[in-house]
Structure formats: structure tokens, C-alpha cells
């Protein structure tokens, strides 16, 4: 029987430092967009941030913006505007909510002093996560008259071989000249190598942060990580990300040695595959905590772990790191990766969130849950939802399914 006593998740002390770190990022971005002293580049969340930072750009991530629209529950107001403008309600709800906000001339960044999203001088995407980012960036490129540059990554990779790395590294090198023109400065190989080194350092810290949840009880949940991942997404390649994760890691290691649980009285451990449901993040965090269940690991938060980065070979290692992304891989690779995660984090079950408008991050669509059940013997659950479009999520049905699932795990 599921415990119904009220248990709330433990708040991390680092949350204050997180706010400061993110404030600093937005402050730099605001200055760049207001003074023009720094050029502004838009970048996809797993795009070549290191290259852009090394060229002196202030880097803005529309996906981060879209996630804020989701988490602040404003996406529902904006999606219909984009749909009315001709975008299908079936395409990425990050795209439709972001474009809808643009059409409404609104942004949550206005609370930070922005008059609209920062105007891009260049937009750079990588299709390693999906192809919709290309269309998304093209729209803004047209609107702002800014050049749009892209890296096209082969998908469904079983192994990332040298030919693939060469192909993508060649594209990264190809970005240098056009970016130099926009940046109005020359490419500095040393600065790039340093940015890649800093990115690697932050990424390793981030991985170690996530790995603290291997401990029982876990000091961190997927819901915490979804909030604390901000710096690894937007400040990869810069010092503040390193500083932030060094502090967060110290706090979590302290929790581990003191036996402090993110979910007091942790009874069960679950793995979350797929996108966060941003508009229900805190509600779901409480829902699991009340049922003494720690969602200890996720595919999503682990997508910003880039161990292969190597300042000695910045282009090749970036290419490899960004090709090794989970969602760019084959079904067989994914099965092995999930199997390893389930074992490493000692989970009792795996939840697959099918995000209606994000096929690439919905890993249950090719029967992977069934194959994972076969190889691990772990129960799996599929729930239907979306990262931003609340119309795709039935809260009652999902809660009922999750509660049943937890009951199923408890009976094992």
C-alpha cells in the first residue's frame, strides 16, 4: 500500500547560488544585447557553445527560453498563436510556444529588463537533437535578417566511428570563417581549446552531480536536476558553470556522507526517460515524494554529459561528444545505455514519458520499453504528455497510472 503521509522534497542549499549564477548569465546577455559591445549568437541546447564563447559571443539558447515558458505555465497561451500562424500543433511545443510568445511580443525575460528576446547576430544549430531546431532557427533568421548556420549530425548511430567524427568536425571547422565575420574577430585556437577544456570540466562535474544519486538514499532527484541543469546548458565552456557545479557537488557529497535523502524515507527508486513535463515539474516532484519515491536518474539530464571533450583536439572531440548524444543513437545503443543506467542507479522501475510533440525524446515509440523489460526484468510504465503543451497531458490518468506503477513496484 502506497504511503500517503505528506513528505516534501528536501530543498538544496545551492538553489541560491544557482539563482546568482543564472542572474549573472542573463545580466551578461542583457548587456550584450543593449550595448552591442558583444555580438549575440543563438545556439541550440547541444550546439557548439564552446566555439561561440571562444569567439566572444554572448550566447542565447531559445530552448532554455521555451522551457521557461513551459515551467511558468504560459506556453498554453502562446502555442495557439503559433498554430494560428500556420505551425502544426503536432510540431515541437518548444518551437510553437517560443514562436507564439514572439508573435505576442512577450517574453519572461522582460522581468530581467529585456525588451524582447535578444536580437541574434547569428544563429547556430546542431541537428543532433532534432531537425525541427533548423526550422525554428530559420524563422528567426528571416525575422532578424541574421545568418543561420548549421551542423548536420547523422542520426541512429550504433557507434560513433572516425568517419562520422571527421564529417561533423569538418562542419564545425566550416563554421569558423562565417562566425569570424559576424564576430568581427579572428578565431583563436587557444581560446577555443580553453573553452572546450572548461566545458569538459563543467560536464564532468555535472556527471558527478548526477552520479551522487547512485547512493541510497539519493541526495538529488530528476526534478532537482532539471532545475539545476541551467548552467550546463547555457554556460558550457565558461567558468561560472564550473564554479557552480563544484559547489553543488560539494553539497550533494555532504548529503551522501550525512545520509540526507532528497526524498525523506526513500522507499523506491525510479528512472525517468523522456522530456520533463515542465508545467508539472513541481507537482510531480511532490507527487513522487509523497509516495516516498525518488526519481533518481534520467536520460534527459544525462544528455549534457560530454566526457569525450578534449582541449588537445577541440574540433574532433567536440564532434565526438555531440554525436554521442543519446538521442542521436540507435535503438540497440539506447537499450544498452538504459540497461546500464538502471543497474548503476539501482532503480526499481523505468518510466517512459512520451512527449506528444517531441518524437526524438520519446523513446518508447519503437517498443523499447518491452525490450528493456526483457533484458532487465524491471517493470516499465509509459505515460502520455508533453514538455510544454498541457493539452497533451491528462493529469488524472497519469497520476492513476503512476500510482498503480508504484504499487506494482512495491509488491515486488
Amino acid at each position, binding site marked *: 500500500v502506497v504511503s500517503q503521509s505528506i513528505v516534501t522534497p528536501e530543498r538544496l542549499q545551492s538553489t541560491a547560488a544557482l539563482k546568482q549564477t543564472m542572474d549573472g548569465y542573463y545580466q551578461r546577455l542583457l548587456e550584450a544585447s543593449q550595448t552591442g559591445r558583444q555580438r549575440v549568437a543563438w545556439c541550440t541546447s547541444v550546439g557548439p557553445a564552446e566555439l561561440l564563447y571562444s569567439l566572444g559571443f554572448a550566447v542565447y539558447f531559445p530552448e532554455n527560453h521555451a522551457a521557461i515558458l513551459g515551467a511558468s505555465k504560459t506556453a498554453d497561451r502562446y502555442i495557439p498563436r503559433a498554430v494560428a500562424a500556420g505551425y502544426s500543433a503536432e510540431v515541437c511545443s518548444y518551437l510553437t510556444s517560443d514562436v507564439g510568445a514572439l508573435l505576442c511580443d512577450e517574453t519572461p525575460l522582460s522581468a530581467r529588463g529585456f525588451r524582447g528576446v535578444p536580437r541574434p547576430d547569428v544563429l547556430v544549430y546542431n541537428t543532433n537533437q532534432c531537425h525541427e531546431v533548423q526550422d525554428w532557427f530559420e524563422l528567426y533568421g528571416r525575422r532578424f535578417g541574421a545568418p543561420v548556420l548549421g551542423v548536420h549530425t547523422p542520426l541512429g548511430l550504433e557507434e560513433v566511428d572516425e568517419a562520422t567524427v571527421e564529417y561533423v568536425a569538418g562542419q564545425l571547422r566550416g563554421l569558423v570563417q562565417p562566425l569570424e565575420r559576424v564576430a568581427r574577430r579572428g578565431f583563436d585556437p587557444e581560446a577555443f581549446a580553453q573553452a572546450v577544456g572548461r566545458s569538459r570540466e563543467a560536464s564532468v562535474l555535472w556527471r558527478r552531480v548526477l552520479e551522487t544519486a547512485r547512493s541510497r538514499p539519493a541526495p538529488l532527484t530528476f526534478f532537482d536536476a532539471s532545475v539545476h541543469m541551467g548552467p550546463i546548458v547555457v554556460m558550457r565552456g565558461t567558468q561560472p558553470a564550473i564554479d557552480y557545479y563544484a559547489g553543488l557537488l560539494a553539497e550533494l557529497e555532504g548529503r551522501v556522507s550525512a545520509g540526507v535523502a532528497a526524498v525523506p524515507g526513500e522507499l523506491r527508486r525510479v528512472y525517468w526517460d523522456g522530456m520533463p513535463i515542465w508545467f508539472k515539474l513541481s507537482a510531480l516532484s511532490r507527487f513522487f515524494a509523497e509516495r516516498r519515491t525518488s526519481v533518481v536518474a534520467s536520460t534527459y539530464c544525462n544528455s549534457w554529459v560530454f566526457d569525450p571533450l578534449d582541449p588537445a583536439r577541440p574540433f574532433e572531440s567536440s564532434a565526438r561528444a555531440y554525436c554521442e548524444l543519446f538521442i542521436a543513437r540507435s535503438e540497440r545503443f539506447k537499450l544498452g545505455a538504459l540497461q546500464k543506467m538502471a543497474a548503476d542507479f539501482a532503480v526499481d522501475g523505468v518510466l517512459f514519458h512520451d512527449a506528444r510533440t517531441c518524437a526524438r525524446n520519446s523513446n518508447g515509440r519503437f517498443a523499447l520499453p518491452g525490450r528493456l523489460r526483457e533484458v532487465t526484468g524491471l517493470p516499465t510504465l509509459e505515460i502520455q504528455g508533453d514538455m510544454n503543451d498541457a493539452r497533451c497531458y491528462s493529469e488524472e490518468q497519469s497520476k492513476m497510472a503512476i500510482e498503480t506503477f508504484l504499487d*506494482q513496484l512495491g509488491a515486488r
Partner: protein
Amino acid sequence: MLRVGLDLGSSYTKGVLVDAEGGIVDAFVRRTGYDYREAAREILERLSVGRRVDAPVFTCGYGREQVDGPIEPCTEIVALTRAVHALYPRAVDVLDIGGQDMKFIRLTAAGAIDSFRLNPKCAAGTGSFVEEAALRLGVDVAAFDALARAAEEPVRIGSYCTVFAVSEMLGALKNGAPLAGVVLGIYESVVDRATSLAALQGDLVLTGGLVAHHPRLVDLFRRRVPRVDAPARSQLLAAYGCALPRAVDASPRDRDA
């Protein structure tokens, strides 16, 4: 000892009074309407006439928390699982078709949930779909079963959306298709939808209000899946399951031991 089990569903609220041996003493069903508490109150009152019933009330279904007084809630899947295992103490598949949900549950021989799956967020193929079709066709839904039995051929309905599916039916009728064939087509589309929830291996137990009110569906399932059974009063099963005394509902671990 008399325990009350309440299944507060999206369309109907079902109440069952169960004795210590797990027998159904009395049962009552009403439309849920908009007020779960009121639906629960009325059923509790009816079941309590001339008897003393035990607290807490065992609840499941969407409105399981919306009941006054002491309650012990569980999900309808857990409740249904207990009831089905009490009736079929072996490994079975369960398909439950309710007002807006369709659930597939695979049970182990010990009565534990091996896996389960719900319909995607869409009510096509559920009770609401059949009711909507009856409403728009202007036919009493109670007449559907007899109509389906009289049909020679089903009119195939392809639309994924309930509203478009009904438009498709109206189009077929306009082109001279017999009403009976359209109703059989509605039933076939329910079976299509349900059998795509999981690869059914046979030894299938059909539960829920739709099958209870449309027994012809059971025959249609039998044409596609070996060994199909539909227990009597299957609409009451979840309510029954949540009220089952623990002696009847031994936990899987106890059984294995």
C-alpha cells in the same frame, strides 16, 4: 462485517457491499455526474439501509479521494486486479473498457501486475465513444446490442477521432448502409482499438461497463483472441476488488511463500 467498495468513475459510480467471505451482498450503480461526493453519498446511503457497514470505505476510480468520511483509496487498476485474481486465480490478461479509459493489465499467476498500459489520451473506443455515437445517430444505446446481432456485415469505420468517426457513420448511412451494420462497425472499432493496446496472448478477461452493457462485444473479441471470458456484473469488479477482505486478497508474496 460488511465492507463498502466504491468505484467513482468518470461516467458511473459503482458501489458494492462485500461480506467477510468476499460475497457481494448488495450493489448500486448511478451516473456520477459532476459531484463525486454526492454520488458517493447516495450510494453509501442506499447500501446502508437497514445495515451497519464498516468504516473505512474502500474507494477507487477518478473520484477516489472525493468521498466524505474515512476512506482507503487505491487505484482502479489495483482494485480490478484483486477482483480478477479472486475470480481467475491464474495468469490472465485483462482488458477493462470504461467510460473514458481503456486499460490492459497482464497478471501473473500470483495475481501481481506484470505490466499494464492505458489508452493514449483519447477516448475513442471507450464507453464515451459508443454513447456519443448513439446520441448523434439518435438511437437508444440500449438498442445497440440487438442491432449489432442483426447485422450481416460491419460498416468499417476508419477515423481516429470520435467526432469524425460519427460523421463517417452518418455518411455511410446517407449512402444506404444499414443502421445495424453501422452499429456493428462501432463495435468492431472498439475491438480494434482495444486489441491494439497490447499483443493479447489469450486467456483474456473482459471487464468494465461497456462490455457489461454490450455483451455482443464479447463474441467479437472471441473471434480475434482465444479463450475470452467476461465475468458477470463486470462493471462492479473494481468496486468489488477494493472492498475485498485481505484474507481473500492475499498479497503476491504471501502466495509465493
